[in-house]
Structure formats: structure tokens, C-alpha cells
């Protein structure tokens, strides 16, 4: 049924398909260590405890500058997410004042259906408070960042379904700060040493290395609650950044778990169905020279 030509052609076409978003490659981006995420792979699913910890990091640290305008409080209680109860979410929402022109005094207590309130009223306010830089919205940020793999490694990503470039980048970024410009910093085009603009911080992984965000996490900064009978989670920047990156992936892709579960059933069906179709086709064509 398949001769050498067919195989050759298939290889050529696959190579073509794979050749596509070699796109990014470009400048020698620093190598980003890939982490092992619970939501990677065909059977990937979010770790509820990790999402709850990540939410804590987001709420206590990130959300003082970063908005998440597409996230509603109710999402936190939805299936496949951090798994808070509806009561917890109601109580959480009620802790926030929501701007509402129809309410007395222009604000009211939040309800589960409200969106996550933004820390700044306008983009200009956000810039003014952050030295001119705009802290990006978190809603889909985990999918708006990626990791560049060198040729030929990105080819394998199509077969492994690697989609965790965003969390990998976020984790690397949060661990990539230096107090002073390191030796490894690239030199300017004219050979002069790298100079950090005022109010910026040096980061190995941020494009251009000068990032406006001060190192947001320190070891021991956030105390995780440890449930009875569970091992304590290390209170390190590495752990915090993993947790918040996982939470950001959930914000960007809240339906990931059900999508992968459906996908497994769909693929299983298609493979079995294709087998049956092939058998039927063979039966119909039996006895025909072709």
C-alpha cells in the first residue's frame, strides 16, 4: 500500500509542516530549562493544591500591580481549577470593593460573577505607578510567552504536544534576576559594557535584559498553609514561581483538563474507527485488481 515514494513524500511534507514556526528562533535566546508540569502531556491535569498556592502568590504579590481582566471570581470554583468552594469564592469576592456606577457611592461589595478588580483604574495610572512601564494583564499571559527551541528540537514539540513554553518562561524569568549586571551580560554593539538604565533590573531571560519589574519574590515571603498530614512545601522563590506559573497557565487555559480528557476519548475513537473503516474498505475492494 505504501511504497518508498510515498514514505519519502510523507517525510518531505512532515518536514515542511515542521519547518513552519521555526519562525521564532532568531537571536540567540538564553536557554530556558523546561520544568516538569502536572498539566503537560496527554493526561495532564492541574494540581489543585498548586493552583491554590499559585493563587495565593498571585493575590498577595502579583495582583498589586497586574490585572487579570478576563478572570471572574466564579472561575475559581469551576471544575478543573483551583477547586475553591462556592462559599469560599463568595466570601473572597465580598472582600473586594467593585466600582459600579449604579451602586450608592459608586462602589459595592463584590459578588462571584464580578471580574477580578484591576489594581489601577486606567492604563495611565498603571504606568505612572510603575516608572512608565505597563504591568501586563495576566489573563492570557501564560500563552503569550514561549520558549525558543533550537533546530531540530522544535520538530519533536509537534509530536509531544509541548504547550508549556509560557510557564517555563515565567518560571525562568522569576528566577533570572541579578542584583548587579553579571559578567555574562551581552556587550553593546560598539563593544561598551552593558549598562542598566535607571529604574530597571537585570534579568537573564527578559528580552533585552533590562526589566522594569523589581524582583517580586523572595524566599520565605509567603507562608503557605500546610494541611494536616501533608508535607510542607518549600518556601522558596523557585517554588513560588512554579506555583504562580501554574496558576497563570490555568488563568489562560481554564478548560485544559476537560479539553485533554475529551481529546483522549476522541483520538481513541478515531483510531478504532479508522481501523474499522480500513477493514470495510478492504472488504469492498476485495477481488478488485488495483
Amino acid at each position, binding site marked *: 500500500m*505504501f511504497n518508498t515514494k*510515498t514514505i*519519502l*513524500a510523507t517525510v*518531505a*511534507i512532515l*518536514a*515542511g*509542516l515542521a*519547518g*513552519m*514556526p*521555526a*519562525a*521564532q*528562533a*532568531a*537571536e540567540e535566546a538564553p536557554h530556558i530549562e523546561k520544568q516538569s508540569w502536572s498539566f503537560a502531556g*496527554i493526561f495532564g491535569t492541574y494540581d489543585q493544591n498548586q493552583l491554590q498556592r499559585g493563587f495565593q502568590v498571585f493575590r498577595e504579590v502579583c495582583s498589586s500591580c497586574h490585572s487579570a*481582566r*478576563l478572570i471572574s471570581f466564579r472561575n475559581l470554583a469551576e471544575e478543573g481549577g483551583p477547586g475553591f468552594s462556592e462559599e469560599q469564592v463568595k466570601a473572597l469576592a465580598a472582600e473586594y470593593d467593585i466600582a459600579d456606577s449604579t451602586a450608592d457611592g459608586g462602589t459595592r461589595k463584590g459578588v462571584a460573577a464580578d471580574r477580578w478588580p484591576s489594581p489601577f483604574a486606567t492604563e495611565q495610572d498603571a504606568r505612572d505607578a510603575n516608572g512608565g512601564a505597563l504591568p*501586563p494583564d495576566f*489573563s*492570557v*499571559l501564560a*500563552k*503569550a*510567552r*514561549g520558549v525558543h527551541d533550537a533546530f531540530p528540537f522544535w520538530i519533536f*514539540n*509537534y509530536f509531544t*504536544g*509541548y*504547550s508549556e*513554553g*509560557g510557564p517555563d518562561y515565567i518560571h525562568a524569568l522569576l528566577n533570572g534576576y541579578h542584583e548587579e549586571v553579571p559578567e555574562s551580560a551581552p556587550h553593546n554593539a560598539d563593544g561598551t559594557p552593558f549598562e542598566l538604565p535607571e529604574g530597571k533590573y537585570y534579568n537573564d531571560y527578559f*528580552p533585552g535584559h533590562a526589566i522594569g519589574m523589581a524582583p517580586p519574590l523572595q524566599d520565605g515571603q509567603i507562608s503557605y498553609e500546610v494541611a494536616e498530614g501533608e508535607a510542607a512545601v518549600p518556601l522558596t522563590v523557585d517554588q513560588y514561581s512554579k506555583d504562580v506559573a501554574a496558576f497563570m497557565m490555568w488563568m*489562560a487555559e*481554564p*478548560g485544559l483538563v476537560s*479539553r*485533554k480528557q*475529551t*481529546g*483522549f476519548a*476522541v*483520538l481513541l475513537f*478515531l*483510531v478504532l*474507527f*479508522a481501523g474499522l*473503516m*480500513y477493514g*470495510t*474498505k478492504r472488504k*469492498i*475492494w476485495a477481488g*478488485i*485488481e*488495483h
Partner: protein
Amino acid sequence: MSEHSTYTPGSGIEKWLDERLPIIRFSKEHLMDFPTPKNLNYWWTFGAILVMCLLVQIVTGVILAMHYTPNIAMAFDSVEHIRRDVNGGRIIQATHAVGASMFFAAVYIHIFRGMYFGSYKAPREILWILGVLIFLLMMATAFMGYVLPWGQMSGWAATVITNIFAAIPVIGTPLLELLRGGFSVGNPTLNRFFSLHYLLPFVIAAVVALHIWALHVPGNNNPTGVDVKDSRDTLPFHPYYTMKDLFGMVLFMIPFAWFIFFAPDILGHPDNYIQFDSQVTPAHIVPEWYFLPFYAILRAIDFNLLFIDSKLLGVIFFGGSILILFLLPWLDTSKVRSGNFRPMFRWFYWLFVINFVALTYLGAQPADGIYVLLSKICTAYYFIHFIVILPVLGRIETPRPLPTSISESVLSKSHA
């Protein structure tokens, strides 16, 4: 090839209908009894796969349009709304986005199959030309569809691609403003792209109908390229090819589903999850993979030629690289259709495929250093293949002896 129908109206109603609108007779002739060469291989199933792709795009697209808002302030969030809040929206949106890539993957296979087996040669020139027209319409539709989510790549693709038209002398600037609906890419651009993105698939469907009509006049080409001689060479389309095509479609759905459910974003670009900002240029503006070969050709031209500046020359090469396909039936001078019987053509065919893949790769690389030189070489070879190699090969090549008929080739193969 009409009048091969064995249809006799069975009941009174069928007879009544047959005298007024012979739609059952037509269906039986063209969807069931149509004589089809018995030796078609699996590359021939991509016609049916493409019909499936078009239908999937139209059905998912119509549903997406029910929830999408074509306004620059709301478009980005409305796509996220579809993914997050619309029932089944996550899967429908992913199917539509991945579907565009699968559609192009299938159409490239279909085109390269036609090129190898000489399916464009007489009497199938019109069939081929209609196919190139469909390819062009697909490119326009896909480009405009990619703009609709209004991410960074959407907006910048719209900016860069509409800018191409500005290079055309005299009418360039008015044309650019007409396309954009203003001086820069903005709300009018998004609105007209949405309108046209909804219209063009139906134009494609109409040209597909003509394409199939043009197929059903001479009938299918086949891997030997030898004309059908008598009924021993053919099988009725149903059940033989309906079944084979259905199997092909199900097989095609497996990688399709893999991308939808396990890597829906891998064929796109992360930057498209950032809302379009005309003040912030992304580090690399890269088109979708299916445009990369032609994008590489556009960028390869960075020099002036006589009075033509590099920008216009790039556009001429870019347009020419697609328009030259219309002339393919007359550029290939060989009387033998199938590459299987053309010993020299086979080598040049695969060289052309490799060159095309190389152009795809180069289209994704930054336009500097060695990549510029390689792009120029590959662009030159792309045109040399059509303008020099194909016309010359037909004259100097000695084809291998052709089988006298399809059934003879089938029998000799099964005894070999």
C-alpha cells in the same frame, strides 16, 4: 462523461421529479456511478479531504461569527469569551484555527500530487486553473481570518501585507487605503476583513463546484497518466471511492484532532495572545506557516532592477510565484503525464519539493546573514524550475514506455 447512468425512476414521485428537476439522476450519475480509474492511490483522497476541510471551516466559522465582535476594542476579548464562556466554544474555536492549517497542509499535498502526476495537462488545464484560483482565494480568506482575533501578529500581519499593495505604481496608495479603510490598520480594516472573511468561503465553495464539474468532464487522471480506455479500467465511484475517501478522511482527522485537543496553539504564535498595539512592533513579524514560502520570496528581493525598485520587484516576484502556476499546463512540454514514467523529471520534481520546503524554512528566519543569500538561491530555483527546467525536460527526456492501458498496468503490477 455523461450518459453513463443506469437510473430508472422507481416510483411515480421519482418519475415526476425526474421530468422536472433530475436531481436524483444527477446524483446517481455523478456521486455513485461515475466511472473512476481503478488504480487511484491514497494521494487521490485529498480531494475529498479538502471538501471536508472547507465544510468544517464553514460550519465552525458560522458558529464563531455568532459570538465574535468585529470591533477593535472588543475583538480580542470576544475570542477569549468564546474560549471561556461559550458552550463548546473552546473546541469550536480551536477546530477553526487548527482547521486553517490542516486545510493548507491538505491543499499543498493535493497540489504537489497534481504536479507529480501531471494532472494539469490536457485536457485538464481548466481544472488546474480553477484549483490555483481556489488556492488564491484560500490564501486571501486565511489571511483575513488571521486578522480577526486582533492579536499582535494579526494586526501586524494586516499592516505588512496590505503594505505590499502600496508598492504597485499609480494605484498603490489608493488601493492600500481602500484595503485598510483608512490610512492605517484600524476598526474599518477589521470590519471589512470580517465581512470578506465571511463572504469568501462561499465563493470558494462555488469555485470548488466548478472544479469538480471540470473534473467530471474528462474524468480523473491516475497514477499511470494513461487515459481510460474502456470500462475494465474503471470502477463506479460508489462504493469503491466513497469508501476509500471516507477512510482517508478519518485518517486525516487523527492529526487534526491531535492538534485541536493537545496542542491547539502550537501552529500559531504566542504574540497573538497580546492584543494588537500599533505602537509596539513585535521583535519578529512572521506569517502563518502556509504563507512562509511566498513570504521568503517576497523578502529575498532586496535589490533594484533598472528602474524598478526593490519593493515593487519583491511584489512582482511574490505575485509571480503564484501566478506562474496558472501557466504550468503550458510550461511543461512533456506529453507524458505521470512522473512515474519520466526518469529525469522525477529528480527535478523532488528537488523542487525540497526547494519549496527550504523556502518555507527560510520564510521563518530573520532576514539577515546567510538566510538572505539562501532565500535568493531558492527563489531563483523556484522560477527556474518553471521557466527553464520544465520546458526543456519535455524536449530532452526519453520517457519510459507507457502501459497500453490502466488495467494492463494494474495486472502487471499484481503479478510482479
